[in-house]
């Protein structure tokens, strides 16, 4: 009798332990990366980590799955109308509810697209070709473009749907103006249709998401995670220590120096893939005079010879070998290989040649060099600050004394969009997988709805016209030819100093099955656990 009681007791304890173990590990996912989402307003920032968090809570009509393929989201089908190629018709998913219980209808979709085209929206460049979005019936909308736009759907993967009623009722009809330092209700609260609902959030500290019990995708997606705890950890060593000690389950950016350490620890694994993101430096060549330089009356960046000298002074191989520990692919064009328009000729890096660079500097009249300030983020890209430091040394060798000013991305990015920085680091992912996205944000001159990230001061009327022409060019051969012409001009004018394309390294517990998404956008509804 006594034995039986003991056995029962042991059994009960074992059962409780097992239950506790599954409850703790199979449902809660503790996720860390170096930086936080900049805002919860889905149209206020066009930035990777911001979209990543938004993708858990909000949904676009269509999105890229974990393999990077376009997949139906809130639209079940789309096609260009046979009788009018300027119109795309979207069939919306039925029976979808927002987190507060409201139905998702065509009115919400039209409202969301119109919101995303407002002046304060960071997403407006993606919709520059759109003339009007119309409701056809409760679950159908038409999107009319200024000319036939065969690639329109590629632009919609990060355009999230909001509830018209909720947004209006809370006074958030216009996207938050981040550059002006504005805060709105929608920047701190959410009401999406996504698989996860916002439970609590302290920016830069902790965000907790809970599974949406009424999610339309039940049965379609694994939905193995019931709770997500998202913690930004800027320090590389602390982030890795958190993964090694089991404090977090998944980190999105394993520091390159710690890949071996994480991979060799039992119970942990590193999953690797090339990322759709290029890292480069931009410099303002359009200003008459720079504020941060020591040359008065003229702008050294305005001389293309200076820009070319800088380009060949940068030793991309050294950055790859030492700073990135081979976890990057050096490039000479601000376009990742995934993108339509990419060629290996554009990608091939120039020879690192300090003597030739010095000669170019002397030819341009800057034989004695000059000084300038470089603005750099320190929590956004892989080893961003270390790359900037390396560039400081390399540019120093041709006489350019660079003062490095490294800041968190929340302060860095507004300097680019406000055009207050004169020399800066930027990384660019291409969610549309097409060159036009790069041109429209980074090459076209800054106008009302284009060129918002073009801080180079570059304004070439011929290039501008070609960028606009791309939007309605239906002949794909002709279109690709124009893309080639624009790239030739961009390279000729040495608009930017490309460095490399990033390689993604996600670190996670062995029990997690998760492919690396080429845009670095984990969608946790796809995650499964053993």
């Amino acid at each position, binding site marked *: 009798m006594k034995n039986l009681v003991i056995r029962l007791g042991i059994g009960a304890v074992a059962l409780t332990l097992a239950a506790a173990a599954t409850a703790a590990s199979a449902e809660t996912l503790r996720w860390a990366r170096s930086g936080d989402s900049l805002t919860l307003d889905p149209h206020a920032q066009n930035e990777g980590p911001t979209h990543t968090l938004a993708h858990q809570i909000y949904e676009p009509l269509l999105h890229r799955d974990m393999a990077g393929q376009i997949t139906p989201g809130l639209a079940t089908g789309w096609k260009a109308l046979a009788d009018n190629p300027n119109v795309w018709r979207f069939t919306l998913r039925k029976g979808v509810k927002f987190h507060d219980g409201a139905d998702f209808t065509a009115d919400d979709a039209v409202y969301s697209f119109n919101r995303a085209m407002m002046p304060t929206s960071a997403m407006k460049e993606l919709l520059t070709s759109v003339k009007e979005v119309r409701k056809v019936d409760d679950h159908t909308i038409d999107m009319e473009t200024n000319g036939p736009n065969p690639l329109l759907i590629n632009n919609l993967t990060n355009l999230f749907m909001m509830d018209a009623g909720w947004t209006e009722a809370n006074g958030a009809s216009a996207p938050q103006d981040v550059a002006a330092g504005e805060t709105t209700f929608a920047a701190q609260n959410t009401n999406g249709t996504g698989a996860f609902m916002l439970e609590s959030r302290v920016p830069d500290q902790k965000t907790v998401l809970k599974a949406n019990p009424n999610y339309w995708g039940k049965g379609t997606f694994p939905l193995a995670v019931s709770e997500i705890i998202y913690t930004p950890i800027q320090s590389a060593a602390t982030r890795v220590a958190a993964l090694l000690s089991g404090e977090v389950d998944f980190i999105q950016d394993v520091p390159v120096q*710690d890949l071996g*350490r994480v991979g060799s620890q039992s119970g942990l694994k590193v999953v690797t893939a090339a990322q759709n993101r290029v890292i480069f430096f931009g410099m303002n060549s359009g200003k008459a005079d720079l504020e941060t330089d020591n040359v008065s009356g003229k702008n050294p960046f305005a001389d293309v010879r200076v820009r070319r000298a800088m380009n060949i002074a940068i030793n991309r191989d*050294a950055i790859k070998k030492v700073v990135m520990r081979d976890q990057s692919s050096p490039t000479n064009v601000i376009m990742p290989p995934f993108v339509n328009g990419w060629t290996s000729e554009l990608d091939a890096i120039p020879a690192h040649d300090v003597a030739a660079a010095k000669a170019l500097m002397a030819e341009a009249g800057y034989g004695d060099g000059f000084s300038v300030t470089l603005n750099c983020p320190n929590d956004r890209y892989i080893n961003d600050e270390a790359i900037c430091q390396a560039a400081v040394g390399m540019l120093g060798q041709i006489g350019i004394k660079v003062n490095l000013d490294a800041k968190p991305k929340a302060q860095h990015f507004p300097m680019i969009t406000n055009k207050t920085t004169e020399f800066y680091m930027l990384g660019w992912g291409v969610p549309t997988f097409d060159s036009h996205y790069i041109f429209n944000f980074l090459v076209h001159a800054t106008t009302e709805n284009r060129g918002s990230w073009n801080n180079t001061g570059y304004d070439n009327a011929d290039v501008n016209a070609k960028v606009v022409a791309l939007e309605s060019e239906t002949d794909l051969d002709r279109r690709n030819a124009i893309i080639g012409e624009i790239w030739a001009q961009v390279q000729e004018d040495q608009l930017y100093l490309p460095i490399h394309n990033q390689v993604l390294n996600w670190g996670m517990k062995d029990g997690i099955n998760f492919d690396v998404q080429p845009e670095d956008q984990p969608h946790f509804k796809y995650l499964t656990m053993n």
Partner: protein
Amino acid sequence: MTSPPVRPSEKPAGAPESAPTSVSASISASISASRLQRALASDFVYDFTRAPIAIIAGLVVLFLFLVAILAPLVAPTNPFDPASLNLMNGFTPPMQANMFTGESFVMGTDDQGRDLLSAIIYGLRVSLFVGVMSVLLAMGLGVSLGLIAGYVGGWLDNLIMRIADIQLTFPSILIAMLIFGVLRGIIPPDLRDEMAIFVLITAIGLSEWVPFARTVRATTLVEKEKEYVQAARLIGLGRHQIMWRHILPNVLGPVLVIATITLALAIIAEATLSFLGVGAPATEPSLGTLIRIGQDFLFSGEWWILTFPAITLLALALSVNLLGDWLKDTLNPRLK
């Protein structure tokens, strides 16, 4: 049985002077020589030569100060000159050849290919400069305020000492961070890098003045009742003259002790601020900045980037502290 060593001041009267004096006892023997001799024969030096820990600590501090002052002469390279760096030398282990360039470095290199030995020597310079300057600032401020509070008294004494009390309730590193943040906000962005060191000095200096003020005030309260002060008052000397010419020299003993201990604290405070990323800029690294950089590479096995700067900081702070401790014991009459 050997007789106990005889302190110089306890020498029996009439004992013969030591040999060197009689040798050089010529008319030309300068006053300074005899002064030096008197100094060498003092209790202070006598105690020092009998304290092996103080000797070792003193030698370490002396060595580190010399190295820091002579940095451009003794450092193999100048790590502040980005143009001299070769990134390919990055992460070279100590005493081993780099796998790309074949160069080797005594203490290895950091992530940017900087020679770590040179970086430490120059970093030491920044750390010591910030430490010494902020102690001088704290001392100047603390001694003046303490003297005024103690001698003048009344509401001024209350005001100064209550501010000191309030400041004491916060850890000094927090005060330093607060002052650092405010100063950085005031300074225009393009001057921040150049001003970073001075901002650090001000922040640390302003956060460490309280112990000076309290000690000086307490000593002043005692001193101002003594006969020589009353005599000075009787002959009609002004307040300022009495405070600065008569009382000040008599309160400086404890100040010297506090200054030494505060120097160790200031060096650590600077390292802490730089470690947190708000101190010396990465392009002009102090020991704390070097430790911050090295911390990222601990897991991956590049231990030297953190270890050597940390050992240097430890040796410096420990030696200064031991020296301060010894000074405290020596100058405190109650411990004799």
